[in-house]
């Protein structure tokens, strides 16, 4: 299994069926797999904070949900995470593709990409960065388990070293 197949497989094993996302070229490697599997219900949001709201609503009625977004979009979603998920203890695994890493061609992506993990630290949310296939299933499944046991959102970050990045 490649990295994207591993993540799709872990989501299914964990019974996470509602996936709210805003498209990204690398995230597409995962979301296209999820879209092909009727187990998953994908919801394409217009903006990342909206995806947080949709995923949180699904959780509130007993479904498990995840959000996929780019680091730029994480910037759009901070208030939703800080004022909905954290005070209400709504656990949502956040899959964030980090721009501004190795091979980045767009200067506009650098600052938000570089700021994503420090902002997660300030919010007090755990985050794990995936740079290679090594023990990927263990890392993702373990992070998801922690997310639900702690009743907090948690981020799993992708880098170009994992998936090859985006070329200009």
């Amino acid at each position, binding site marked *: 299994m490649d990295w994207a197949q591993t993540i799709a497989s872990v989501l299914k094993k964990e*019974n996470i069926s*509602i996936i*709210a996302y805003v498209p990204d070229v690398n995230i597409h490697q995962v979301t296209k797999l999820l879209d092909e599997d009727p187990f998953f*219900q994908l*919801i*394409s*949001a*217009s*903006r990342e*904070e*909206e995806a*947080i*709201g*949709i*995923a*949180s*609503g*699904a*959780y*509130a*009625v*007993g*479904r*498990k*949900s995840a959000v996929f977004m780019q680091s730029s979009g994480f910037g759009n979603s901070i*208030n*939703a995470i*800080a*004022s*909905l998920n954290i*005070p*209400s*203890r*709504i*656990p949502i695994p956040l899959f964030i593709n980090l721009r501004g890493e190795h091979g980045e061609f767009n200067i506009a992506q650098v600052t938000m990409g570089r700021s994503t993990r420090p902002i997660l630290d300030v919010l007090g949310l755990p985050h794990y960065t995936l740079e290679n296939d090594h023990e990927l299933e263990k890392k993702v499944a373990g992070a998801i*388990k922690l*997310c*639900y*046991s702690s009743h907090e959102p948690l981020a799993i970050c992708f880098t170009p070293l994992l998936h090859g990045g985006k070329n200009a």
Partner: protein
Amino acid sequence: MLRYSATKLIMKQITDQPVVSNLGPTSDELWHASKRDRNFYTYGSMGLCSSIALGMAVSIDQKVIALEGDGSTLMNLGSLGTVGRIMPDNLIIVVWDNEKWAQTGYQASHTAYGTDLESVALATGFKKTSTVSNEEDLDLIFAQALEEPGPWYIVAKIQEQKYLPVAPVEPEATMHRFRSTFVDEEKRIG
């Protein structure tokens, strides 16, 4: 039409459907009108009330009601396009449109200058829409919305009134109480 009285009118028709309320007076008045486990009060995340309701609507078969505001809707207009794309027939969005950001000092919102939220909803594909400005019309259209497939978008033009006391409810408790009505805690997922 006053929001608290209109809220009470709507809650008379509700049985066990989940109701999500926008932050501030909309949530406070919902609590004063009807203290029930399936009220999901919000405390922040302005603009996300109807997105939270959409997440519920795609997850369950029951009707789901969002009590929105005009200012909060303007903050997340794209969410109407998301509803239009998915077309959940069990979603009812009621917008309390006072044409103001009342809580921050009654500044005029865009709906005071011609933004017509019902037209926006129609343009994104909502099946059933209405704008009402009195309780009789609201009562009738809401009864229809509970019966007929949607998605529904009801703009209720309201006037502001003196605020009721802030509801003594906390986010974590709200979440737990609400979710427990859907999930057996003995078998809680995750």
